[in-house]
């Protein structure tokens, strides 16, 4: 009988030698992948760090603790710290609603979630200017109430949220769709409440997808340029995020300082990847340990 396929093959890390390709195919595929990686990822990354340290470590560190740079770093972290948790909540709720319930307008919701991928970030920024800017729809009201959104931190946070909101939801929807509702149903028949089911069954079973979504969301939140550039106004020491700061320095021919700031973003990316690999490694190791223990007993 069919149907058991889904639970059989997945998550096995062992390679089945009976069905692998001939050696030369493997080697050439690996070579292509490595050359590609080297050309498009490793070389630029090395160049960033080389350029950053071109005037020595002293200049490097000086250009990072310089007040405007320091402020840009803090603002970038702040924007990520606000937008990532909000988008995690949004992403989990949206994925939950889309995959576990039947309702009208579901397809429309999925399309809407993709909107930030489809729309140019600059346009996204302009939408906020149109809404909240001095000449915008809500501009006069905001001015009367002494609220500042555009050319201020709230605008930057809003723009960041907009460009990053598909990441978590997009990562979770296929995963949760595949898992269906039977785990939750099993949990309910065993007497668990909805809350217990969510924390003990749903979240652990989407943990890896969720984590990956968070990592991507965070990377984008810290690196976003276009949308933030439109709403920020580039006020040094006030509304400059790290990517904007990098561009300003670069345009002023302060290459070492500019690349030093860029190396921070590159470093963040590397740290994210390392964290992700560590977690994945731990995850497989736990499983293998359990398998070995079980094999020894039997």
């Amino acid at each position, binding site marked *: 009988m069919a149907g*058991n396929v889904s639970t059989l093959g997945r*998550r096995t890390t062992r390679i089945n030698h009976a069905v692998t390709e001939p050696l030369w195919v493997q080697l050439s595929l690996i070579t292509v992948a490595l050359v590609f990686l080297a050309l498009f990822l490793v070389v630029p990354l090395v160049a960033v760090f080389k350029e950053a340290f071109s005037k020595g470590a002293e200049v490097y560190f000086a250009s990072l603790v310089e007040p405007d740079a320091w402020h840009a770093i803090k603002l970038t972290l702040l924007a990520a710290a606000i937008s990532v948790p909000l988008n995690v909540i949004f992403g989990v709720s949206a994925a939950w609603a889309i995959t576990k319930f039947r309702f009208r307008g579901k397809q429309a919701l999925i399309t809407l979630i993709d909107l930030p991928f489809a729309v140019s970030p600059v346009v996204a920024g302009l939408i906020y200017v149109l809404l909240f800017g001095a000449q915008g729809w809500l501009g006069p009201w905001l001015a009367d109430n002494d609220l500042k959104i555009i050319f201020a931190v709230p605008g930057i946070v809003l723009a960041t949220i907009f460009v990053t909101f598909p990441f978590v939801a997009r990562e979770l929807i296929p995963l949760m769709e595949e898992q269906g509702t039977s785990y939750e149903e099993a949990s309910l028949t065993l007497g668990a409440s909805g809350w217990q089911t969510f924390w003990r069954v749903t979240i652990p079973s989407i943990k890896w997808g969720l984590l990956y979504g968070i990592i991507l969301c965070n990377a984008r939140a810290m690196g976003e340029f276009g949308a933030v550039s439109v709403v920020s106004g580039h006020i040094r020491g006030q509304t400059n995020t790290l990517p904007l700061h990098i561009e300003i320095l670069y345009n002023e021919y302060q290459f070492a300082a500019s690349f030093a700031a860029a190396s921070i973003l590159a470093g963040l990316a590397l740290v994210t990847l390392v964290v992700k690999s560590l977690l994945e490694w731990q995850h497989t190791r736990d499983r293998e340990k359990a398998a070995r223990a079980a094999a020894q007993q039997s």
Partner: protein
Amino acid sequence: MSIEVKNIEKQFGQFKALDNVSLSFPTGELVALLGPSGCGKTTLLRIIAGLENPDGGVVHFHGEDATHVHVRQRQVGFVFQHYALFRHMTVFDNVAFGLTVRPRGKRPGKKEIAERVHELLRLVQLDWLADRYPDQLSGGQRQRIALARALAVEPKVLLLDEPFWCTRCQSAQRSAPLVASSSRRAAYHFNFCYSRPGRGDGSCRPDRGVEQRQN
């Protein structure tokens, strides 16, 4: 606990899955629902369990109307067709789950839970698999773990969806109290509906088969 379903209707869009189904299952009887694929056996079990709301009709447990009782309160053990074992938990944690989610006052202690889980695992003869994950089990083993998990909360009713679909004859015999070894009617899909307490005579043939027809 006796179960009675009366005039159950269930519609999926234009499709009528259950049309005026009435059945009664006296206490202690092991009943098999037979019928071709797609005739609504799973749907009926889900309605009895409270996982699906009927469009019409009532479900009585022990003479009381349970139609609108939440799944959580129904005390129904359900073994899903694909078992739905929690993949991120070990076999032990799967079986213990129903006990560990009880409200604080009614939750047994750690030691008591462990004893109960091992007792159930011995019952399905898989005590040695306690530390494995569901992915590391065979289909028949998974099924027996799912059974142990459902029994852990001492349900008043046990519903097994297609208990034979993966079980070879041999392991069916070994899975002790519930699954009969009959493969005579292998062409049929069996769905068991079992109301506790069992008769304890070890012969686990259904007392009765109810044949469901395709609408």
